[in-house]
């Protein structure tokens, strides 16, 4: 995203997630979730959790659910490649896991290493029963977030909010 971006979408998304009752933000650092996590660090009512691998975050979210709390795991698209086996308890146990995925390897990507995993994100998540809610434009953000929240915490599904590089902007190489 450019410095001249007039809308602070990270703040909008953060406020939306907090209003839905989310208290834990496990994350693997990515440019796409940097400001979201900074908001979580500044907020007294929620906790960011720095992970070593994305699959930890899926399990943290499930643990929160076991005691009736809500969490969102934030990761770059590469991390989707690290989580499928943990999605087995999400799918089999019907845990309502919410993911926020900032994409690499799609619209405008300049690093050839990113394409294979980026292009595999949707089929991998679909294969494991995760519903996908894509954000390509600012107008998509609020309705896609609400749809993902409804799918998870109201309907008991697992869902991914997928922020494309068309929305985030592609990193220059």
């Amino acid at each position, binding site marked *: 995203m450019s410095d001249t971006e007039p809308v602070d979408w990270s703040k909008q998304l953060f406020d939306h997630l907090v209003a839905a009752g989310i208290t*834990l933000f*496990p994350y693997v650092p990515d440019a796409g979730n940097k400001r979201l996590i900074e908001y979580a660090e500044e907020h007294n009512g929620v906790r960011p*959790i720095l992970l070593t*691998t994305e699959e*930890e975050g899926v399990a943290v979210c499930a*643990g929160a659910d*076991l*005691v*009736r709390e809500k969490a969102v795991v934030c990761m770059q698209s590469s991390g989707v490649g690290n989580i499928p086996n943990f999605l087995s308890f999400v799918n089999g146990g*019907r845990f309502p896991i919410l993911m926020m995925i900032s994409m690499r390897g799609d619209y405008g990507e300049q690093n050839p290493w990113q394409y294979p995993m980026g292009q595999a994100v949707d089929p991998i998540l679909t294969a494991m029963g995760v519903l996908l809610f894509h954000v390509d434009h600012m107008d998509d953000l609020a309705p896609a977030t609400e749809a993902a929240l409804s799918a998870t915490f109201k309907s008991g599904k697992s869902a991914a909010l997928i922020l494309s590089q068309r929305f985030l902007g592609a990193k220059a190489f």
Partner: protein
Amino acid sequence: MTPAVLDRRKVLSQIFPNPDDYLFVTGLAGSARDTAGLTKDGTNLFTMAGAMGAATSMGLGVAMSAPNKKVVVVTGDGELLMNIGSLATVATIAPANFSIVCIDNGCHGETGGQTGHTSNKTNLKMMAEGAGFSSTLLIESEAELAQGVSFLNEAPGPRFVHLRVIDGAPTVFKRNMDLAECRIRFRSAF
């Protein structure tokens, strides 16, 4: 390294004389069976039967979301090693109400008893300390089991108990393997 002497089927009841006081999350296989035996597959237990490497992180999510409960992860050496980075995550968050008990039999008991890293050079207590745990305890004798009770109650959390056992069979206990049912059971009781 001295040969292990403890029988895994007899250790948990000694370090957890009052299992109802805790919420338990376990790894798969032997640690799940031992803890199911301890709690009689109680509503304060969520066991894994797959997703190897998930136990510590799931327990962390429980501990952070239920700060007034004592939360324990019981897992094995192989399960812990599969996601050993989770120890760093726990150490950074440092939840006071969280303990990990690693039942280290030095092998992969569920898949045929293949030798594990802890039978070679790997020391899990040192790895926990390296990750940033300040409260760690090695238990490898009957006498040290009593020390485990006070450690789990009094040492500042998070705590790591490294429990070395012989590579014998785990507790025989038929637990509920329907994970959706077990999720609802745990949530409903909380």
